[in-house]
């Protein structure tokens, strides 16, 4: 299969100008790079085999690496350092002494300390129930607040109710009756009737027999609350 023609045909099918462009790479490659690359790779493998990791032994392949170069390297560096710094190490004798037998027992001490540290430092495992407990506590708090709020509201309502009753109690029945006679209409009468009837266990009194002056305070209050009134 001629891959080149496939590529070009594909590009032409897309009406792409890339089909007619040169595909030469403009990058430069060092001279003779490919000639000696296999040698460089072999040297790397040999160094790895000896346990020496050498990154990028030679990017200038014409120089190469002498055999045994890295074997002698540490000794050469030490000799060079001593030649350049002859006084290196002088006056650096340690004036301090370690207690006798200190280093013999040190490994065991460190191991024991490490183990003790491990137990202290071991990560705290938070059981699932504990995690759930936090959510439960929040839920309980929310329920408590709602309960308090509801109770407060009820108290407020009752207070309001009691307050209403206290106020009504101050008004005489005659006054209440006069007010109703002046302001009540047929619709109101019907509502009153129904309220009285439901309170009396379903016994309905005749409208004509219904005297506002005979209504008790609770019934009046209920009526007023249903129809809405302002203090």
């Amino acid at each position: 299969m001629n891959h080149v023609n496939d590529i070009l045909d594909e590009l032409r099918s897309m009406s792409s100008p890339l089909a007619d462009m040169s595909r030469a790479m403009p990058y430069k490659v060092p001279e003779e790079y490919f000639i000696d690359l296999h040698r460089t790779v072999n040297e790397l493998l040999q160094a790895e085999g000896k346990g020496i990791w050498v990154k990028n032994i030679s990017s200038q392949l014409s120089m190469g690496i002498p055999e045994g170069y890295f074997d002698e390297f540490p000794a050469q560096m030490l000799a060079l350092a001593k030649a350049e710094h002859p006084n290196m190490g002088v006056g650096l004798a340690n004036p301090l002494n370690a207690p006798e037998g200190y280093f013999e027992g040190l490994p065991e001490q460190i191991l024991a300390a490490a183990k003790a540290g491990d137990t202290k430092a071991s990560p705290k495992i938070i059981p699932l129930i504990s995690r759930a407990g936090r959510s439960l506590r929040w839920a309980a708090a929310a329920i408590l607040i709602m309960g308090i709020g509801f109770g407060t509201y009820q108290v407020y309502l009752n207070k309001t109710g009691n307050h209403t009753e206290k106020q009504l109690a101050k008004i005489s029945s005659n006054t209440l009756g006069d007010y109703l006679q002046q302001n009540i209409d047929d619709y109101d009468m019907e509502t009153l009737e129904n309220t009285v009837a439901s309170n009396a266990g379903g016994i309905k009194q005749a409208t004509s027999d219904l005297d506002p002056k005979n209504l008790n305070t609770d019934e009046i209050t209920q009526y007023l609350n249903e129809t809405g009134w302002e203090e």
Partner: protein
Amino acid sequence: MLPQMHETIQVDDQVILSSFKDERTRDTAFTQLVKKYQERLYWHIRRMLVEHEDTNDVLQNVFIKVWKNLGDFREESNLYTWMYRIATNETLTWLDQQKRRSSISVADGESDLSNKLVAQKGFDANKLEWKLQQAIQALPEKQRVVFNLRYYDEMPYEEMATVLDTSVGALKASYHHAVKKVEAYLVGN
């Protein structure tokens, strides 16, 4: 029989594989393998990394991996595809490591390569071949790989699917999008 090291004729992959399995001829086989594929793998990596030094590092890593794993190569794909897969993975891993080392974002990584491109010897923004490289560097990493493998390496989609572990359909779509993006870049610049 393997040709001698100084001979440069192309050796059949089967000969290389069978010679590699024999300890006596392993080194020679490996050398022939490196010589056979070095330039293709080099350019595949360089098109992604731009700089020669970075390419050299990754290419050496690729051949070291090939050496270590060639004995276990099961010939489910051809040798060329297998080596391309190693080279692609090493290149993408290297790019990720560079980004993490310098804590740069994906977008910054792409502009970093653009800067490397501009710094290349002989760079000329007015020349079409350099503009094409800039257009390709502007593609997302994976799409860039697809484009390079198809446009430069002329790799069939079926082989590319093995190299990149992606379906043929997805690769075709990716390549077509890449071509359109490159064209748009060239037209716009």
